[in-house]
């Protein structure tokens, strides 16, 4: 992919892929003249014997997928080392592997990571993204046949962080990729959970939650490429927005190629607007090149608080602000519950509560 270096052209904002993003706020990550430091930014905090982390030369570990995302192209261009995380074949991780970022300076940086899941392995990996960052970031997932990976990406960044990220999975025969993306922090987060398949019987379940308050721009662009027969995908993203100029963008592109007979896909995005001045863009897009499929559907809703729910709770003596909190927690419960880790679930819900309280104050 390094051949693309000379083809790099910064986006103008008129491109379909960048039309929602406030380019003035990306911290120079998309500017060809900005000095961007390449770093190996991921480290494991809870060691598991069946998982190995090595930092390798980018030349020895090229990208496993093609990307036309400019932030990814830029990241690939500047990094010289790649973090390689390997889950051993047949490994059955009983505890989740916890990873965090290291070496983030708050100045423009780029990072690439490859997570390889061995044959018939079964693992959950949690990545904590916290603190200050201006980061162009790519994580690829290489799922061997029969493997099962749950990857939980938590964006609990500081209020000024900028994070442009691509999380791309290549799912082979009978492998399952579960992605849970939770974005509550950051000034600007633009995250691309994308999936392609390399064998039949493969499955992707992409779930997400985002909560944007005053001035935050949280963008999630999903892309599922059904390029093999008999693969499955589910997408379910839920967002809430509160406060002036909170902006979220959700794009859900699902392509069912001519050879992808037996595809079963459904994608859903729901947004809850909690105050005036917030804006949620939601664009589901389904392109179907074969009719020989099991099912394909999509839905998108954006609405305000259900006054009847609030009335019902209030009529039981529950004060309005607690009732609102209950409804929001309830709205997100479906996604948060999937994390399956009480400590993280409580931390996220508390953060959402406190961000909401700040907006209401």
């Amino acid at each position, binding site marked *: 992919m390094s051949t693309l270096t000379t083809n790099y052209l910064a986006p103008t904002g008129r491109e379909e892929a960048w039309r929602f993003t406030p380019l003035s706020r990306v911290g120079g990550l998309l500017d060809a003249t900005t000095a961007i430091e390449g770093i190996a930014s991921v480290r494991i905090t809870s060691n598991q014997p069946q998982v190995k982390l090595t930092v390798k030369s980018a030349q020895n570990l090229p990208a496993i997928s093609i990307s036309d995302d400019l932030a990814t192209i830029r990241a690939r261009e500047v990094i010289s080392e790649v973090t390689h995380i390997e889950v051993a074949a047949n490994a059955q991780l009983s505890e989740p592997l916890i990873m965090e970022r290291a070496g983030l300076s708050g100045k423009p940086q780029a990072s690439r990571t490859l997570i390889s899941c061995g044959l018939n392995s079964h693992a959950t990996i949690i990545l904590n993204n916290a603190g200050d960052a201006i980061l162009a970031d790519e994580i690829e997932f290489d799922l061997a046949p029969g493997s099962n990976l749950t990857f939980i990406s938590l964006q609990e960044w500081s209020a000024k962080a900028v994070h442009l990220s691509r999380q791309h999975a290549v799912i082979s025969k009978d492998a399952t990729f579960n992605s849970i993306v939770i974005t509550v922090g950051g000034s600007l987060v633009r995250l691309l959970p994308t999936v392609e398949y390399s064998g039949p019987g493969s499955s992707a379940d992409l779930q997400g939650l985002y909560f944007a308050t005053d001035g935050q721009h949280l963008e999630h662009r999903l892309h599922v490429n059904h390029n093999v027969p008999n693969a499955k995908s589910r997408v379910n993203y839920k967002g809430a927005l509160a406060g002036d100029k909170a902006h979220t963008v959700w794009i859900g592109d699902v392509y069912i190629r001519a050879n992808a007979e037996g595809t079963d896909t459904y994608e859903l995005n729901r947004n809850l607007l909690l105050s005036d001045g917030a804006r949620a863009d939601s664009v589901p897009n389904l392109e179907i090149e074969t009719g020989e499929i099991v099912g394909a559907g999509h839905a998108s809703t954006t609405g305000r608080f*259900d006054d*009847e*729910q609030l*009335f019902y709770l209030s*009529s039981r*003596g*529950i004060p309005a602000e607690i009732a609102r909190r209950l409804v929001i*927690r*309830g709205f997100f419960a479906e996604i948060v519950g999937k994390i399956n880790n009480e400590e993280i679930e409580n931390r996220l819900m508390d953060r959402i509560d406190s961000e909401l309280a700040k907006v209401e104050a």
Partner: protein
Amino acid sequence: MSTLDIKGLQVSVATEAGFTEILRGVDLTIKSGETHAIMGPNGSGKSTLAYSIAGHPKYTITGGSVTLDGADVLAMSVDERARAGLFLAMQYPVEVPGVSVTNFLRTAATAIRGEAPKVRTWVGEVKEAMKALNMDPNFAERNVNEGFSGGEKKRHEILQLELLKPKFAILDETDSGLDVDALRIVSEGVNRIKGNSDLGILLITHYTRILRYIKPDFVHVFAAGKIVEAGGPELADKLEEKGYAEYTTA
């Protein structure tokens, strides 16, 4: 001894055509331990009375007063009314996705009682109340009203009545959508709660069926937004026989 006093209550609702007056001067006084039945044809404003007392934002009070032991109920927010001792068992209880019955009940009990109930006694209290209403213990883990059958929704309302222990309960068409068995269980629940407390009840219904199980002390006929006749239980018998025709054609 408490008193819920409704005087000259006038209520309008905003429609596309402008404000429409629904309640045209309702007078009614309920004391602790009394059961009042309000009966009337569809569209007479019975449910509007119930929701206006509870404080639903859809309704605009244009005249009259509602007081609870002298306190101005109409000046209170919805949650304040509940904490003052009013409870509305709704005809159509609202689904709250992602919020479990357990969490909801405990949050409500904490708000009403002013402190979180002690975990040990609370769990037993809920279990016992559910058992008395023939509710499966798994019910507590489900989301509030989500996917509940008509009977389950009404039992859940009565469960809250039992746990929140209000001074006055308004039962809005609690009998609608219930089969005979469910009606009996729900009615027995109300009678049991009343037997153990000084609860005053305002029972709103279209049919006399529920009055075979919950015996009213007073019956009021409601038509065109106000009470048009009042009497004892014998008035219900008359309605059973003759229907509402004489009130609606008048």
